[in-house]
C-alpha cells in the first residue's frame, strides 16, 4: 500500500514536472537586473539574465552616489568601472568568476597596460575571453567602458 502510494506520488511529480518543462520551452524567463540608483529614464537595463546567462551593459566610471564620472585618470576610472561591473554582476547573484567575455573600450590605446594591471586584480585566475580596442569617443567623455557576459 505504502509502496503504491509512493509510485503514484512519483508519477504525479513526473507528469507535473514534464508539463512545467513544456511551458518553459515556450517562455524563456527574462530577468531585468536594476540597481537601487539606476536612473529610470534610460533606454537600457544594467543587466538582463536569460537561460543562466547574464548580459551586462557597458559600464563607465560613474560614481553610483553622485551619478558623475569619478575624478582622476585612467587608473581611477578603470577601478571604478570594474567596481560598477562587479556590483551589477553580484546584484544579479553572479560572481566575477562567472564572467566569460568582456569588451574593453578605451578612449586611447595608450591606456592598455595600465588597464590590464587593474583588470587582473578583478580577474586573477582564468580570466574571461576579451576584446579590447580604442574608440573615437565614449559616453560622458569617459576614458574607459567595459561590458560583460557571464554564465553559470
Amino acid at each position, binding site marked *: 500500500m505504502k509502496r503504491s502510494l509512493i509510485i503514484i506520488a512519483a508519477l504525479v511529480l513526473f507528469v507535473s514536472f514534464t508539463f512545467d518543462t513544456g511551458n518553459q520551452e515556450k517562455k*524563456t524567463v*527574462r530577468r*531585468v537586473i536594476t540597481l537601487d540608483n539606476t536612473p529610470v529614464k*534610460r*533606454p*537600457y*537595463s*544594467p*543587466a*538582463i539574465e*536569460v*537561460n543562466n*546567462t547574464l*548580459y*551586462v*551593459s*557597458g559600464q563607465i566610471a560613474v560614481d553610483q552616489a553622485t551619478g558623475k564620472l569619478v575624478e582622476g585618470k585612467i587608473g581611477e576610472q578603470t577601478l571604478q568601472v570594474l567596481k560598477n561591473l562587479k556590483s551589477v554582476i553580484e546584484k544579479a547573484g553572479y560572481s566575477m568568476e562567472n564572467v566569460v567575455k568582456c*569588451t574593453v*573600450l578605451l578612449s586611447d590605446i595608450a591606456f592598455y597596460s595600465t588597464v590590464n594591471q587593474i583588470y587582473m586584480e578583478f580577474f586573477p585566475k582564468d580570466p574571461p575571453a576579451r576584446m579590447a580596442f580604442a*574608440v*573615437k*569617443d*565614449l*559616453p560622458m567623455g569617459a576614458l574607459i*567602458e567595459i*561590458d560583460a*557576459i557571464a554564465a553559470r
Partner: protein
Amino acid sequence: MKKIISTLKAPAAIGPYSQAVEANGILFVSGQIPINPDTGKLIEGGIAEQTHQVLRNVGAILNDAGYSFKDVVKSTCLLGDMADFKAMNEVYSVYYPEKQPARAAYAVKGLPMGAMIEIETIAVK
C-alpha cells in the same frame, strides 16, 4: 546546429557575413546600418531617421528568425559622433520601451558606407 537567417525585408549583406545566425536558441544579428532594403542604399536624413531605419532592419531580421524586440538581451550601438547619443536614445526607446536589453554604446572612427550609426544585436528565445 547553426541556422543562417536571410530575408529580403532587411538589407542584403554588403560583405562576407550573414544577416543573422541562430544557434541553441541564441540569435546573433549582424551590425545593421541604415540601408533601405529596397534600394540597397543608405537612407537620406539625420541621426533620428538613420536610427529608425537601423531598428526597422533589426526588426525585420528578428521577425524573419521568429524573434521579436522583446527577445533582445544585448545591443551594441556604434555611433559616428558621440553628439548623436541623445537623439539616438530617443528613437531607440521607441523600439525598446520596457525591460530594455543590456547595451554598450560608443563612437567609432568610421562606419561602413559612411553611416552615422550601426547596431549589433543578440536575442535569446
